[in-house]
């Protein structure tokens, strides 16, 4: 094992790299994009009257042939693969930091601004793994999108874009395609925004300063806004608007809560520089004024709860998840929700030390049950498979919230394992759903059937991911749900009843998810659709994700120590 | 018993009674001049009263006591108000009874009497005017209550003379947020209560907009004179109250010298005249609000009054609580 904590420079590097590497990559993409943009502009001034399609083609000098169901890997853009660098850096830093903190305890750098404990390392590993799946499946997804852009772009260009007046209401979500030039330009920014998104999430994970944590989480909202609204159709613009407004307002509440906590800390005699420092606040939490802390924690839970998809500010989630590009949905659902929830977990430690466990227990359990009930009810009535996956995310986040409400070591460890398992399985499911959308051109469950017959590999991956989300062994969600349930029933009568209600609701969600997925997968292939052989390079990242999820469920291996230590970080002091 | 105090009361009531029609005349004259007309002169309201009093009293068929008594109740309440409100001296013999809540209740009594009279005639206009008047009153009375209440918090009493005397001693109270908000709220409320623009137009008989005029449409002769006189009294007293609350300088705070009382009388006449002129000038430039926007204005002034109360409650005291 490496022992790096003796070398401050090395520690600083390890703590900085997860946030800095994606940001640097984003910068590189911006520069590259500018150059490509200039070239494209030159091309477009010459060619626009003749061939407007090439205007935003970016680096794609060679025009693509018309739409092809399978995308040959030879035409992939090398830029798309460069994005894989940052997940690898994050994973590496997470692993090194994990080795470090298991042996030597928390490390910090820049006078406490960045800090890593076991929870940080765990979250970094989850972010890295999910980002790896998302970034690795991005090239295939982008190639597919570019192909459809070109195909529909040719047909759409004849029709003048609706400007000024209200455009005719599109009959379905499928037929909406905006002008092609802007669409391609939007794809040019895709990598910049995704990398910035990763950087912001990593910053939120590695910082120990609660103010910087807020800034980082709000930054994730801002950078993903255009990813959600990238299509510029009515639905995606609506989703983006709701996303930014609800998340910004919700998270503003979290900032108000942070300010109130800072006030309480200052009044408790903590110096200005340390009054937002998480370890300091935990150590001196007993001196915080209870009334002010209670108000602050309530606001923080509501605010970050908005970002974690919990009631009452959850309305953005299904819209944004269903409209974003599939890899971005995977990132948002797989890790953004849990990064926001990790913030709540950190605040929970402070609150428990200052107020005793009952306050957060009631608050979190109540929110979790409401979210679960809502998700289950809406899953029953769901007709769109991307929205179905989004509501399933809400269901899983509320299970994690319930684990946090229980708060015993077993429950916390199970909750953290659930974060990892859900991240991997949901990322896989979303990436697969993006491919299904490209294949079938619709996101309605009723119009997708016979997936297994048409594309066996894709259908199998999607089906297995949903099976994992349903909580079947060998996937890790089985182990974690079992752990949460056991911890809940062991925690006393009140939580036992809450857990029983939760299990009932989970059962409803289970039934809804299972029947809808079965409808999509089974049945004969639609008439006229040829069997599609997906290239292995589009599917290997998803297989890796499923394998990781299953491996985590069979044996945690070296991660077991990390998991128990991360749970110990969150235990009531 | 202080003879100067009684003299002050007598002077105050006498001045208000004599001056109320003159104030209306002054305002009409100001408007006329600003609009480029010659105007009927300041004394015209007195001439109107004389003319109306000479006519024979007429009551519409089917009206009951509410119609007949309303003018008297209106004038009576206005006269009691003229006695109670501290315009000249804060050391009058009635100071113990000049409570804020009594004043608002008297105002409301006059308003309700007139609204009942409007309903009693059974005509469409009367009922319409009454219902509009009640809509407005429902927001105005609490606003006045709130605004003066905000001023009463620093004084520690709802007694009007005490509030006015406190403000005269300590002008800083008026420049606090509570004071400024209360001034704004009370000004709007007074405009609404006296039926001036932008809430009601006293010189219109257009059925879409009139409020006060619709209620009193059936009155004629001496009854009409009383109604008009009552309205003028209310305007004068309320403007005087506004002047006393927010510009209390010069008011006699001790009941010792007649000279101070006379000086205060002169000042209050001047202040009310200035207020009336300013109001008349402003009315030239304002348009009347559409009727359904009126509640917005009044709700706004109520909110201002409420903010004034909360502000003086929570912000105000320097280590007060």
């Amino acid at each position, binding site marked *: 094992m490496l022992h790096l904590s003796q070398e401050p420079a090395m520690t600083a590097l390890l703590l900085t790299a997860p946030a800095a590497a994606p940001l640097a990559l984003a910068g590189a993409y911006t520069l590259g994009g500018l150059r490509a943009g200039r070239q494209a502009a030159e091309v477009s001034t010459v060619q626009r009257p003749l061939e407007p399609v090439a205007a935003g083609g970016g680096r794609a000098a060679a025009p693509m042939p018309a739409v092809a169901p399978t995308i040959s890997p030879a035409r992939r853009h090398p830029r798309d693969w460069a994005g894989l660098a940052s997940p690898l850096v994050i994973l590496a830093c997470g692993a090194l930091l994990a080795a470090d903190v298991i042996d030597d305890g928390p490390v910090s750098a820049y006078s406490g601004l960045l800090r890593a404990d076991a929870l940080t390392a765990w979250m970094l590993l989850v972010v890295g793994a999910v980002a790896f799946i998302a970034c690795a499946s991005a090239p295939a997804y982008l190639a597919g999108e570019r192909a459809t852009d070109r195909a529909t772009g040719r047909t759409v260009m004849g029709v003048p874009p609706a400007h*000024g*007046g*209200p*455009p005719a209401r599109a009959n379905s979500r499928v037929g909406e395609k905006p002008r092609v030039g802007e669409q391609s330009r939007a794809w040019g920014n895709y990598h910049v925004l995704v990398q910035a998104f990763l950087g912001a999430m990593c910053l939120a994970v590695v910082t120990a*300063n609660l*103010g*910087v944590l*807020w*800034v980082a989480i*709000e930054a994730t909202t*801002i950078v993903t*806004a*255009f990813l959600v*609204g990238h299509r510029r*159709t*009515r639905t995606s*613009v*609506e989703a*983006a*608007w*709701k996303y930014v*407004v609800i998340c910004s*307002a919700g998270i*503003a509440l979290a*900032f*108000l809560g*942070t*300010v*109130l906590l*800072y*006030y309480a800390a200052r*009044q408790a005699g903590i110096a200005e*520089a340390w*009054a*937002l420092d998480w370890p300091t606040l935990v150590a001196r939490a007993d001196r915080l*004024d209870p*009334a*002010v802390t209670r108000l602050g924690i309530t606001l923080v839970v509501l605010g970050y709860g908005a970002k974690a998809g919990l009631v009452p500010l959850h309305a953005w989630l*299904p*819209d944004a998840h269903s*409209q974003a590009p599939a890899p971005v949905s995977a990132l948002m659902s797989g890790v953004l929700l849990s990064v926001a929830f990790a913030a709540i977990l950190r605040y929970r430690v402070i609150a428990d030390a200052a107020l005793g466990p009952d306050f957060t227990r009631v608050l979190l359990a109540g929110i979790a049950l409401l979210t679960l009930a809502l998700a289950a009810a809406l899953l029953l*009535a*769901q007709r769109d498979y991307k929205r179905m996956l989004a509501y399933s995310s809400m269901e899983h986040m509320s299970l994690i919230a319930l684990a946090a409400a229980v708060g015993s070591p077993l429950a916390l460890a199970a909750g953290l394992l659930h974060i990892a398992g859900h991240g991997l399985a949901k990322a896989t499911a979303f990436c697969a759903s993006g491919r299904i959308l490209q294949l079938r051109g619709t996101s309605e469950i009723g119009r997708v059937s016979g997936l297994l017959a048409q594309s066996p590999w894709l259908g199998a991956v999607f089906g297995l991911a949903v099976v994992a989300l349903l909580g079947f062994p060998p996937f890790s969600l089985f182990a974690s749900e079992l752990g949460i349930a056991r911890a809940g029933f062991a925690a006393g009568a009140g939580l036992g009843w809450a857990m029983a209600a939760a299990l009932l609701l989970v059962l409803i969600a289970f039934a809804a998810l299972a029947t809808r997925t079965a409808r999509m997968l089974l049945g004969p292939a639609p008439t006229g659709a040829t069997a599609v052989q997906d290239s292995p390079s589009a599917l290997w990242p998803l297989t890796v994700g499923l394998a990781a999820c299953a491996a985590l469920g069979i044996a945690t291996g070296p991660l077991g120590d990390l998991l128990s230590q991360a749970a110990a970080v969150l235990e009531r002091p | 018993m202080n003879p100067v105090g009684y003299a002050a009361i007598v002077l105050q009531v006498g001045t208000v009674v004599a001056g109320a029609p003159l104030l209306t005349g002054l305002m009409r004259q100001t408007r006329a001049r600003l609009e480029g007309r010659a105007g009927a002169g300041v004394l015209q309201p007195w001439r109107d009263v004389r003319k109306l009093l000479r006519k024979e009293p007429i009551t519409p068929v089917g009206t009951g006591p509410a119609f007949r008594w309303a003018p008297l109740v209106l004038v009576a309440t206005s006269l009691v108000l003229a006695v109670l409100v501290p315009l000249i001296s804060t050391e009058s013999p009635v100071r113990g009874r000049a409570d804020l809540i009594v004043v608002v209740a008297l105002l409301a009594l006059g308003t309700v009497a007139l609204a009942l009279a409007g309903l009693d005639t059974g005509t469409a206009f009367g009922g319409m005017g009454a219902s509009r008047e009640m809509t407005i009153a429902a927001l105005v009375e609490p606003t006045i209550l709130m605004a003066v209440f905000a001023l009463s918090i620093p004084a520690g009493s709802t007694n009007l003379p005490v509030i006015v005397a406190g403000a005269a001693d300590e002008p800083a109270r008026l*420049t*606090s947020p509570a004071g400024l*908000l209360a001034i704004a709220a009370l000004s709007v409320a007074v405009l609404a209560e006296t039926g001036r623009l932008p809430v009601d137009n006293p010189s219109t008989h257009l059925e879409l907009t009139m409020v006060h005029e619709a209620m009193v449409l059936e009155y004629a002769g001496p009854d009409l004179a009383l109604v008009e006189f009552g309205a003028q009294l209310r305007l004068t007293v309320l403007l005087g109250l506004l002047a006393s609350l927010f510009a209390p300088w010069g008011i006699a705070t001790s009941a010792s010298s007649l000279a101070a009382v006379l000086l205060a009388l002169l000042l209050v006449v001047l202040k009310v005249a200035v207020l009336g002129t300013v109001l008349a000038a402003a009315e030239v430039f304002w348009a009347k609000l559409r009727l359904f926007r009126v509640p*917005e204005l*009044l*709700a*706004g002034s*109520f*909110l*201002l009054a*409420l903010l004034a109360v*909360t*502000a003086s409650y*929570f*912000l*105000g005291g*320097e280590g007060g609580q």
Partner: protein
Amino acid sequence: MSESLFSQLLNLACGAFLLAAVVVLWRRELAAIVRLFALQGLALATIALLLGLHEDRWDLLVVAVGIGALRAGLLPYLIRRALAVLVAGQDGGHGGGHGEARETQPLVNVAASLLTAAALTLLSYAVARPLVELDPTPATRALPVGLAVVLIGFFVLVTRRRALAQVVGFLLLDNGITATAFLATSGVPLIVELGVSFDVLLAVLVLQLLTVRVREAFGTTDIDDLRELHD
């Protein structure tokens, strides 16, 4: 600065701060709403300035100037520019006069929203009791004002239908939080303040762009028309 003068000026600034938020509810013209928002930014900067002078902290004075520039200058400028684009776009298109420039029909009518604002103010006083009791000074006694503006901002965000009115609601919310931070603790640490200001600026830029896109896609900026996605 003497203690009583300080508290009087602070109270005046807080009063103006709250009043601006209330009058936003009263007005329908978006241009007037933006002007009020700029005024509120000035009041906020004044609060920071007064606190800086009172505590002899030069960094607070710099922050006050920065806040004034951002919230009374840059953000209103951005919104005004977006408004100009929208209005110009509409004049070029179909008729309808100044539909984009006015909040014609909020979900809750103006009289009711003013009364709600009154209730919200009382609520914020009730909620802020423990905050004030922890450390009663002239500044913390004005804390309910900050919370009231937060609540009013939230209310504007929920009940207004024009996209830009919602943006102003979000900014009111943010102003309220910043005021709370100043009144409670003389501001959060500089790095956090910088990050927050930067985030808010970016959020407004994003919302401004999205407003244009909403108009492109829907032909109006009436958020009530955004009904494509629902369950």
